[in-house]
């Protein structure tokens, strides 16, 4: 069931953004930024957590989950540290994704030659 939900949810977000991309002048950069803000907004009242529970892995893949993990880590740290915890815990959960992206793209850039 989670597999089917993942298919529907991830596909739905991609379809919505494709429709926005085709029918307006926004670039993919605009749309990904909007989706990140949307993910952060949805998680500020724990709606995105419920989505992840019902959808599973499909909700972790779209870029909305990036905004969700930013604010999720921030709020988790804020619970124990107070207001400064929002700054301390910001990258707690997204650190793996960002570090992996930096390291892999640097290594592959060094190894492979650009084609054109």
């Amino acid at each position: 069931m989670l597999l089917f939900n993942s298919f529907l949810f991830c596909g739905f977000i991609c379809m919505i953004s494709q429709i926005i991309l085709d029918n307006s002048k926004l670039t993919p950069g605009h749309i990904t930024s909007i989706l990140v803000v949307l993910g952060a907004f949805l998680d500020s009242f724990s709606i995105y957590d419920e989505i992840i529970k019902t959808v599973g892995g499909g909700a972790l893949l779209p870029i909305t989950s990036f905004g969700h993990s930013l604010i999720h880590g921030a709020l988790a740290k804020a619970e124990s540290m107070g207001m400064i915890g929002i700054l301390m815990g910001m990258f707690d959960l997204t650190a793996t994704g960002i570090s992996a992206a930096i390291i892999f793209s640097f290594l592959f850039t060094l190894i492979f030659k650009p084609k054109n």
Partner: protein
Amino acid sequence: MKNTKYEKIADKHKASEDRVKNSIVAFLCGGFIGLLGEGIIEFLCTYFHLSRNESSTFMIVIFIFIASLCTALGFFDKLVTKFKCGLLIPITGFAHSMTSSSMDYKREGPIYGIGSNMFKLAGSVILYGVVSAWLFGMIRYLIGGLG
């Protein structure tokens, strides 16, 4: 006069058809990626006995690895022109933007080429993500609805 009118109508028709096709393709491709992600999580859970949190982290790293590798090998751009948002909206798009911008500026050297251009496109995602997460986090904290 007739020709321009005809072209206008033809353009309109073609564009609308393309839009429907594009959105369906994006839906199927995005859905396939979501399916694959959940499949990888369940595979790691059952065969490597990892917890769900650990396996979802591994899943994201696997996707970033594949997307960076495909971008560096040069055929991810062709896939993106075909599937568009189906590949740009999942985390693959994030990895793709970083690798492609650093590949494009590789010849300008390690500092002013790779270093300063790597976050050219991904930087906006991180910037607006952090700013909005901070703002919403402060609102949530000040309202006092933690827990």
